[in-house]
């Protein structure tokens, strides 16, 4: 009876450490992270924001602005995928890089739905108190808009999803598109995995 128990329990005892993985810290966006087939992962967001920033720097489009540094309005960026995530994960990383490095200044007090309504009110009040002509309101150079889309296909159990991040920069003086960039990510498989 005892031998039989040992025979039954031994393989379970040997497999137990293999099956469980202790929680640990990994670098954000590290290749050791979880990769899913049907969702946009953190690695994808970081790759997309990096690709966008590289293209902006490479073309030098922000240097063509009238204002120095270029003034930027964040327009609508639509997540048109079935993966639920905040688009701000990408845009705030881009803003951090552009604003902190002095390449651009983001106008948060522009339009009817400003990002910082309180700051816009203070600015309008100051303008009103000082007179119409003094201290002009921010005069942005560009607006950034975009869309994230997906194309899903499958063959048997294998799924393939391509997530496409596309951003467009519009010159607010001419109304023309002055920069656009597409970053694709294609993932293939039938189950989620840890590590690339």
């Amino acid at each position, binding site marked *: 009876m005892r031998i039989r128990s040992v025979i039954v329990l031994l393989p379970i005892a040997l497999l137990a450490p293999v099956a469980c993985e202790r929680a640990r810290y990994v*670098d954000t*966006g*590290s*290749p050791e992270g979880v990769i899913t087939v049907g969702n946009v992962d953190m*690695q994808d967001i*970081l*790759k997309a*924001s*990096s690709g966008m*920033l*590289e*293209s*902006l*720097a*490479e*073309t*030098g*489009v922000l*240097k063509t602005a009238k204002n120095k540094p270029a003034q930027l309005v964040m327009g609508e960026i639509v997540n048109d995928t079935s993966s639920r995530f905040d688009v701000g994960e990408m845009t705030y*990383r*881009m803003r*951090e*890089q552009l604003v902190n*490095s002095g*390449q651009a200044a983001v106008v948060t007090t522009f339009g009817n739905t400003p990002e910082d309504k309180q700051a816009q009110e203070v600015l309008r009040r100051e303008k009103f108190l000082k007179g119409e002509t003094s201290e002009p309101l921010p005069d942005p150079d560009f607006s950034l808009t975009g869309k994230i889309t997906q194309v899903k296909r499958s063959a048997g159990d294998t799924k393939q999803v391509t997530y496409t991040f596309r951003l467009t920069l519009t010159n607010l003086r001419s109304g023309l598109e002055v920069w656009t960039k597409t970053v694709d990510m294609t993932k293939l498989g039938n189950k989620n995995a840890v*590590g*690339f």
Partner: protein
Amino acid sequence: MICTTNVTTTKSSAHRALRATTVATFITAAIAVAGCGSVNTTYTRTTPADSAVAAQTRVNDLFQQIFLTAKEVRMNRTKGGPMEVQIDVENNGFAYKTFSYRFDWVDTAGNVIPSQLSVWKVTNVPSGGSTVIRAIAPSDDASDFRLQLRQSES
């Protein structure tokens, strides 16, 4: 004597047959392995590019170094101002390789410039093929880079 000769002859035939079988098996295996998704590459440039720069590699993974080789490193200044690096990576192995890489940019003092551009990116290269990995510096101050390369375990 005749018998010995016969035996020797038989042995020699067996050896030759065995050697032929081994060679045939090896060639078949090589064709089978190399044939799976391998690519043939044709290029016209035979000398290093004008923008090619010398690079130093610290090897911690010998297999990775054998199969994935950085053939040429080129650095140029982009239209926008910051530096661009392009590295030709060749896969000399028999299998499709997936690897991730990350560029860190440094200024003239050798300090790393922290940026949102330094992220791990994944790419693939088929057997016998090559790919170009490229990166743009986060600012005009960046003058040099460090590249980390990790091969997938799968």
